[in-house]
């Protein structure tokens, strides 16, 4: 197990290094000058001074080595061209909201997906089953930004069931801990639901198929022969049978959730990594774009690793080689 873990960690480190190098190459080789002054009054010498300040007057290999060294040795991603803030600090502020949103979306996705899958499996090929299957495909096909906008217009602006956007109410720093947590929850449920919805269809279909498949197995038939109720068979034994596959889905959905979070964050004005990345891309803030790409890669690699490890614990049929 330890060897497996070390091997995976080493592979992850190599992959991370490749992502860093590719990201740097793509950004550095793109034409342009992030320090070109857009204000006609700013003299060219000022731009030169800023180029020197950010090390952009150095040859590209020297820039790369300096940047990589700072990242690997000190986790120093440089300073934002736009705001002057240390990038690590900027993304440190943005990371928790993204993790919260992605985590809540993952929860919503599994609760909804498993719930709907169970409903469908209770009555295979019934109208309910058909409805669940059609709905699953529909939510999978709809783009997150459109679902988000509709949810805001109907549930937030129309019915007032949720705030239209943001992570907290105005001046929420004054609230006590319980009120503040409820305030965040009130802002969280709608974007999490919208983000979770797209993959919930997949979970529902896998759950349904696994449960129906379980009923046909020897274990399923034995459970029925022992006189267990259908509910118990599906909820306890069936879900245990489906768990490894559902967990595998989590490793697939983690990258999708993170990329979806970028869109959901912008639509819902959620102040996370996606919003920070979008602002950086819009303004050519290269250090932030590079760091955000790397953070995304780290999150995806970590999620995939965690899912693999959990899988080996849950399913004894999988042996760690």
């Amino acid at each position: 197990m330890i060897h497996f873990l070390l091997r995976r960690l080493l592979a992850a480190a190599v992959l991370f290094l490749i992502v860093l190098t590719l990201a740097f190459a793509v950004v550095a080789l793109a034409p342009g000058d992030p320090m070109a002054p857009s204000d006609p009054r700013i003299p060219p010498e000022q731009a030169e001074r800023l180029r020197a300040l950010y090390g952009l007057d150095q040859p590209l290999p020297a820039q790369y080595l300096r940047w990589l060294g700072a990242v690997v040795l000190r986790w120093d991603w440089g300073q934002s061209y736009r705001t002057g803030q240390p990038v690590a600090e900027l993304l440190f502020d943005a990371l928790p909201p993204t993790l919260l949103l992605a985590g809540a979306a993952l929860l919503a996705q599994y609760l909804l997906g498993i719930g709907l899958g169970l409903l469908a499996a209770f009555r295979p090929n019934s109208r309910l089953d058909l409805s669940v299957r059609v709905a699953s495909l529909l939510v999978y096909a709809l783009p997150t930004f459109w679902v988000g906008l509709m949810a805001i217009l109907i549930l937030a602006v129309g019915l007032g069931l949720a705030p239209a956007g943001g992570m907290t109410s105005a001046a929420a720093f004054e609230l006590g801990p319980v009120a503040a947590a409820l305030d965040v929850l009130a802002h969280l449920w709608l974007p999490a639901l919208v983000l979770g919805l797209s993959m919930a269809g997949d979970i529902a279909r896998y759950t349904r198929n696994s449960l129906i498949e379980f009923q046909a197995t020897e274990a399923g038939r034995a459970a029925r022969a022992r006189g267990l109720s259908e509910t118990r068979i599906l909820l306890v034994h069936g879900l245990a049978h489906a768990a490894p596959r559902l967990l595998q889905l989590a490793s697939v959905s983690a990258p999708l959730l993170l990329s979806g979070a970028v869109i959901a964050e912008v639509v819902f004005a959620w102040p996370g990594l996606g919003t920070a990345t979008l602002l950086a891309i819009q303004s050519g803030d290269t250090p932030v774009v590079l760091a955000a790409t790397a953070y995304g890669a780290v999150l995806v690699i970590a999620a995939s690793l965690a899912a693999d490890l959990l899988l080996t614990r849950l399913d004894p049929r999988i042996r760690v080689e």
Partner: protein
Amino acid sequence: MIPVVAMRLLAAAGLAAMLGWGCASDIPRDTTRLTVGMRFEYPTPNELIVQPTLGHKAITSQLLLPLMGEETDFREGPPSWKPALAETWEFSEDRLVLTVRLRPDAVWSDGEPVTADDVRFTWQAQTDPDVAWMLSYAKETITDVEAVDERTVRFHFSRASPTQLADVAPEAVLPRHAWGQRPFADWRSDPGWFFEHLVASGPFVLENRTPGRELVLGRNPDYFEADLPRVERVVLRTAADGAMLTTQLLAGELDVVTGISATDAERIEGRPDLRLHAYSNRQYTFVSWNTGRSWFTDAATRRALAMAIDRHAIVDTVWRGYARVGSSPILSDVWAHAPDLEAWPHDPEAARVALGEAGWSDSDGDGILERDGAPFRFELATFAGAAARWNALQMIQADLRAVGIDAQPRRFDPSALLPRMLGNDFDAVVSGLAIDTSLDLHPTFHSESIGGGHNYAAYANPEVDALIASFANRLDPLDGLEDLHRLQRILHDDQPMLVLWEALTLAAFNEELESVAPNALSPLANLEEWAWR
């Protein structure tokens, strides 16, 4: 068992949050507080170490006052100034020395008086190479700032110029006793340090900050205007997408939103509880024809292009009327705008005739004009990200195609296109500029600004150069009015750039608010006077 209990608790909390939010809308309005939505980033209150933006400036000026504030009377005459930290000011007879008296009642929020030393310290920071302030060029003619006594400060100039007050007045005066502890060389390494050592001289102090989300400004009890601000607290909220701010305004979560797009304005127009306010932002969008390219070498062709493009249709369609067709880079609501200047009319027939006279004809019958065997086909570039501008480009493409010109719109990342513009390495480009109150056209039209400067069109006209120099040398801008009028007429005839439209900025606010009057200088202008009725 535990997961089931946890799920139930979670569901209960979610329901409570949802219901709680539903009931929150019935709570009576807190009239001591205002919530404003605008797009901003505020990594530091120190304006010398960030890229200068209108949003940053607007917020900083609530906390740190300048010596003087610019008046918004652009229509009436050259820039004029109102006192802020300065009480009075006076030039010496040769205009090489400006003596400024500070208000006696101006104090920092920690109780320390605002002194002449603070003013001198500010100038030192502005001109220090380690601070590398983007706008340090504005201080070039100031040779020294002398603290005569606690309240008197003297600015010494190398030469007299019409922009002397503008060079001295508008930047925030910085607190020497608080920020002077940090060497200039370290200022850029930690912008957040200035929050921890912030003392305010303006109407507000910074109460709280949540990066990327909101700033909370509270009333400064030490502000010299005792009755201001009229509200106890202003919460500034931001979002990456402007449309979201409009949605939050419609949902009642925000009281004021600045910088609303013309498309979003439609959602507000019908609302009786909201008021829409459109104002000039002193910005214009233009198409610059590179006169170094064979298609655009002659003024006759460029005038024909101006007549081929239906700018009224762009203003009506893309901007839904919230813009004006432009006729000059000195905008129509600025005092020096030439009143007799008429925007080129949309007249495709006249454009075709003019193009024919300029030597263009469709000799091979493919629908595209040629001259000397070369087709009238060029790249029409613009910056990526501006949806309205891109829509306008499609309309321009169709208008030009109707007279036999093949313009091919393309979008570029700003960091890629801007260097090309500065190097005059493009065919035609659609971009935007804001006019400076000094009305100095040297950076955009003087031949010295070709190649590295902002004379994108590579336009060279000795008479224009002479008029720009003549205006710059007049101490009273009003004496140069004729120069500016003549200059605009030449540019109008030569058409190195076609001013497409003068945009208006839109702000919307709750009908029950009064004194909300954002303007071209600040989306938060006179914030201290905003209040609920």
